């Protein structure tokens, strides 16, 4: 993908300034409708969800005390995985967005919530709510577009290191909670600064994060295995907790990749964003920069309603249980103004996102020009590219792109 302003066909070229502001007004009206009708039923929903999640976790951990028995291990691990996913996605993420602050319940509030995750609530709220939701899909600004270690856009210069990015991405998926913690800390950037020059805020956050990780690890890998020890289930419990964390990490990574990575979701150039972006312009950027997952009610809950990523990005602080009813209205606005409402089932979106990761790990045009027959020569070309100096690389790269274009035209 190319940032929207460098594309031959800009998907919003047909919109006038007045159109964009009209979109803003229509979306504001949809938002207001929900705010005006928030009430006891919504409160009952989140309280019920918290109640269900805590009882499920407690029950699963009780079953795991007997996890030396394989059926108990399976039941407990599945239950704990689901509980952790619900806690992070439908509850934690959304509570920390302030979706439930209107209830004025100090127990379910963005300023008091702490989640079952390696990253601290404070760190996550900054990097996610302030940075990602404000600078959504702006290359170089929104770190969600690759967590600083990936090539997520054609315009990013290709270097051989990126060949390994599918592997990085997989490792990041497995240990996603630590990836998020590192990303909240801006670990890479801060570690490059000499120790004595690092900002005090970083040292403080690092300490808080390490404390959080220690508590999380103590719970899952020390306390619960010890509790299961008298029942001969210490090691199975440890394995179950590790598995549940792994499942939660893989799942949340997949859902988040689906939100902004599938092919066709737009990215933006910082330079092309107006100094004072209007509400309408901000809305349009959110509309084009997000993708939905279609599926059942269960799917929506398990993704924390991030399956309604478009609606979530338009209205990040509306209660998640209302995204489903808002979706058709939002879609109608997309249709009315001729915009592409990006929605597909989970496997398709995950596949598409991974396809993009793999495609961009190669030089531009390489994957498109490769087939089974020319694979040996293409591999040779790739080797040349990887080992060539910068100037040669540029020449070969240009030739490759031209060939891809010819191929696409044919």
């Amino acid at each position, binding site marked *: 993908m190319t940032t929207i302003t460098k594309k031959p066909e800009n998907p919003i070229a047909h919109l006038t300034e007045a159109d964009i502001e009209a979109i803003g007004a229509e979306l504001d009206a949809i938002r207001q409708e929900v705010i005006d009708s928030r*009430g006891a039923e919504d409160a009952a929903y989140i309280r019920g969800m918290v*109640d269900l999640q805590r009882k499920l976790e*407690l029950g699963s951990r009780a079953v795991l005390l007997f996890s030396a028995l394989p059926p108990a291990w399976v039941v407990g691990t599945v239950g704990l995985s689901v509980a952790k996913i619900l806690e992070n996605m439908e509850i934690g993420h959304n509570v920390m967005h302030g979706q439930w602050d209107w*209830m*004025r319940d100090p*127990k379910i509030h963005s300023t*008091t919530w702490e989640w*079952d995750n390696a990253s601290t609530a404070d760190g996550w709220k900054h990097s996610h709510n302030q940075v990602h939701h404000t600078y959504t899909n702006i290359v170089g600004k929104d770190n969600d577009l690759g967590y600083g270690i990936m090539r997520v856009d054609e315009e990013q210069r290709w270097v051989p290191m990126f060949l390994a990015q599918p592997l990085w991405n997989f490792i990041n998926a497995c240990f996603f909670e630590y990836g998020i913690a590192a990303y909240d800390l801006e670990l890479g950037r801060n570690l490059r600064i000499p120790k004595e020059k690092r900002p005090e805020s970083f040292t403080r956050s690092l300490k808080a994060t390490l404390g*959080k990780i220690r508590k999380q690890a103590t719970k899952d890998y020390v306390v619960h295995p010890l*509790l299961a020890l008298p029942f001969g289930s210490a090691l199975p419990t440890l394995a179950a907790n590790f598995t549940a964390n792994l499942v939660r990490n893989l799942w949340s990574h997949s859902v988040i990749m689906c939100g902004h990575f599938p092919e066709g979701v737009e990215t933006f150039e910082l330079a092309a964003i107006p100094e004072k972006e209007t509400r309408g312009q901000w809305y349009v950027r959110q509309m084009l920069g997000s993708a939905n997952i279609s599926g059942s009610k269960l799917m929506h809950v398990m993704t924390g309603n991030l399956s309604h990523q478009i609606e979530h990005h338009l209205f990040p602080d509306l209660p998640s249980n209302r995204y489903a009813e808002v979706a058709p209205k939002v879609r109608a606005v997309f249709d009315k103004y001729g915009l592409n409402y990006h929605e597909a089932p989970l496997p398709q979106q995950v596949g598409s996102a991974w396809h993009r990761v793999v495609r961009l790990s190669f030089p531009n045009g390489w994957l498109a020009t490769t087939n089974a027959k020319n694979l040996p020569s293409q591999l040779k070309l790739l080797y040349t590219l990887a080992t060539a100096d910068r100037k040669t690389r540029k020449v070969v790269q240009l030739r490759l792109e031209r060939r891809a274009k010819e191929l696409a035209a044919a």
Partner: protein
Amino acid sequence: MSSTSLPAAGLRRSASPAGGLGARLRAVADAAVSPLTLDDLLDHFHPLRREPGDGGLRGRVVEVRPETPESATILIKPGKGWRGHVPGQYVRLGVDVDGIRLWRTYSLTHGPRADRNISITVKAIPGGAVSEHLVRRLAPGALVHLAQAEGEFVLPDPLPEKLLLVTAGSGITPVIGMLRNLFLRAEPARADIVLVSVNQSETTAIFRDELRGHAERGHITLVERYDDRDGVLDVATLDTLVPDLAERLAYACGPAGLLDALEQHHADRGLALTTERFRPVVLATSEGGSVAFEQTGTDLELDGSTTILDAAEAAGVLMPSGCRMGICMGCVLPLKEGAVRDLRTGELTVAVPGETDKGGVPIQTCINAAAGTCRIDH
């Protein structure tokens, strides 16, 4: 058994060996449910337990009994942590109305009861979110949030020989608690009590029949006054209603107009009077200003007549709150810099960094409005 307790900060130390073990077990339990605490989980199973943690004291509604078309008595079984009360005191009650947690104060309308339940009697104020909810929609079984009883509006012990009680409208609620406590016990109190009970009309008079019962049994001398029948009470005529007024220790509860007049009346004669107000008197407003909440990172532009508490809550800031009338100190936050104006008195409170206390000047957010640019540590 060892009597040392865990060195971990924040744990309640206990002198007894069993307490030390309890604290250790709790530390393990908290570590097992991190980042939650054991209390967070217990809330889902036993909200009325003795030590509810920071979830706070709660109570379960046992009965909602209509008193008049506009009022109802709500019987509540408080959590085991309820420390009791003296009749005349009030309780802060938090209830979720349309999903939003709202807090109000209500007088307790019983003395301590054998069943340990507490009761409040609420009059539905048209448009009053909480009172309407409590009178018309609250059902038995519902959980409410409670704070411990507070208030200075209590009878002296021992009782003086002669008492005068003046109430108007729902001002009867602390007084009925006193009377029930005095006369429902095995050995009823002996005292010469005159109750002047003012109401708009006979049908809206809460506890009318119960008060008449007390009068019939000779517990009290009841003077009933109805605005629609007798006209609005002029305190200057109180002497004719209660000839030995000067000999009586006086207590009054009701709307501000009546209390102001009574206070003036008694002060002029050098007589003591204890009053209980349900609503603050708003005196002064100013220009307003901006208020920055340092920790939550919220900046608000406030006018000079809205309390900081109301405005901050409306903007989604999680604020501590209590009686909302400047009494309980449940809403106090440190003002680091700026000026606020007390809406009851017009008094300015000013915080100047470097001059006033480093931790800020504590202000009651429920009765103060912004009077300039303010920074609040919250």
